[in-house]
């Protein structure tokens, strides 16, 4: 499997205290553990089981994911920030890997 690639989309300009939409996605097969491959062997479960977004160290949103979440998990939410800061995204894989992405948010 190719290394999962996270992507995050933010609006071009962000005003302090004004809600903006955050779109997130990571390439990942989200193997449910229920499916068989072409040879009939069960493909073991391997999913992104947790997604956490924090801003300046404060948790913005955390999500527990189950196998019912689609492949290439897409999560969108709305947030607001009082001032400029670092927005951090982390995806936790069943295999222990953690995929991270950071975005500097400049308000103004």
């Amino acid at each position, binding site marked *: 499997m190719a290394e999962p690639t996270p992507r995050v989309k933010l609006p071009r300009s962000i005003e302090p205290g004004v*809600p903006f939409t955050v779109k997130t996605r990571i390439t990942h097969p989200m193997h*449910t553990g*229920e*499916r068989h491959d072409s040879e009939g062997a069960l493909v073991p479960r391997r999913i992104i089981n947790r997604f956490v977004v924090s*801003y300046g160290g*404060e*948790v*913005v*949103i*955390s*999500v*527990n*994911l*189950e*196998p*019912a*979440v*689609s*492949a290439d*998990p*897409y*999560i*969108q*939410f*709305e*947030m*607001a*920030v009082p001032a400029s800061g670092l927005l951090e995204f982390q995806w936790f894989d069943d295999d222990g890997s953690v995929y991270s992405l950071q975005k500097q948010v400049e308000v103004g």
Partner: protein
Amino acid sequence: MMAPTRRDVLLLSASATAAALIPAGAAEASNGVWQAIDEFTGGALRLEGGVLLDAPEIFDNGGAVPIRVVAEGARRIALFNDGNPNPGVAEFTFGRLVRPEATIRIRLARSQTVYAVAEMEDGTFREASQKIAVTVGGCG
């Protein structure tokens, strides 16, 4: 804390008058969805209203069904299904900087009902549900 939109105010005021208890085990489900919801709520009663579950009634691709859920005043929202092998879908915990709203794409193995259960700031629980018909099931 963000100000609620006019739509949310309407949604909440409509729901307050129409609030009704959700009957326990309202339908037969074989995948343990009622037990899963009880684990999330600690067995607390759930009220209808206050949760907007925005999902298609019919969707072609069960592998990626778009779901949007909003519950103004919620700390946590969990999504469940009654027709996949496992009843859990996703659970969102909201901090101070985010609106209690999320959009996600989910897999539905067949046509079934999706439930959104919200834990409110006062510790009560609210629920909404939506039947979704899928033309092609998203393989479990």
